[in-house]
């Protein structure tokens, strides 16, 4: 959140535009509300429906195509493997992290590592976006000509 605010504050100071800042503040509430739906529900649903080949196949998956029965079976197995992996690794990671509960020092370093990873990836995105924006601003007059 803080990392996202830095470029917007910069934008505010440089171009005297408060509008993006207000949009981010307001948008953050809905983003927060919908983030579990994006992160959990859509991910899990797509994983659980990975064997659904009923769309975009122009009826190839319908009965009468013996070859596609095997294809469907293959996808079902793939779905089973993926869902099993997802559940298994989530349980393992949750158990490991929660078992660190009594040791604050370890929990701090685990959390710190996670924050560094997430912050690093977001920071990289912001950095690339800033570079892109600066290049765009520099080149924009030349393109207009």
């Amino acid at each position, binding site marked *: 959140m803080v990392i996202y605010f830095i470029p917007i504050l910069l934008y505010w100071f440089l171009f005297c535009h408060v509008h993006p800042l207000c949009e981010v503040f307001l948008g953050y509430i809905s983003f*927060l509300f*919908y983030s579990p739906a994006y992160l959990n529900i859509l991910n899990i649903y797509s*994983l659980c429906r990975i064997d659904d080949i009923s769309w975009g196949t122009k009826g190839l998956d319908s009965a009468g195509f013996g070859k596609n029965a095997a294809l469907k079976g293959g996808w079902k197995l793939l779905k089973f493997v993926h869902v099993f992996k997802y559940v298994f690794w989530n349980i393992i990671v949750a158990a490991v992290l929660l078992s660190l509960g009594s040791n*604050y020092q370890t929990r701090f370093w685990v959390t710190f590592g996670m924050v560094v990873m997430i912050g690093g990836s977001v920071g990289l995105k912001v950095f690339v976006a800033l570079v892109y924006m600066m290049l765009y601003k520099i080149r924009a007059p030349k393109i207009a000509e």
Partner: protein
Amino acid sequence: MFTVHIAIEAFRQDVLSRWLASAVSATVLDFFVYTMDFVYVMMIASILFYSLHFKNSAKQFKSKIYLVSTLLGIFMMIIMGVLMVDIVRGLISNSSCTYYVM
């Protein structure tokens, strides 16, 4: 899950333990934290279960997933609020909080 647990734990330490320390035993407060963890896990498990058994157009799927989505959204906003208050309190005062979460 980890974030949820930390937030509920922080809420228990900073709010429940202070306000209800005389009325409720520590075991009951611990039970509260694990109950919330359990509720969260059950919500995720219900998404998994309904996704495996129903298509997105099914009536049962729609109602349950909308409910779980709303509950998770509310959960997330509460967690964000709790963590925010905890971080600010930890920064401005000598709080008993020992978690450092963004």
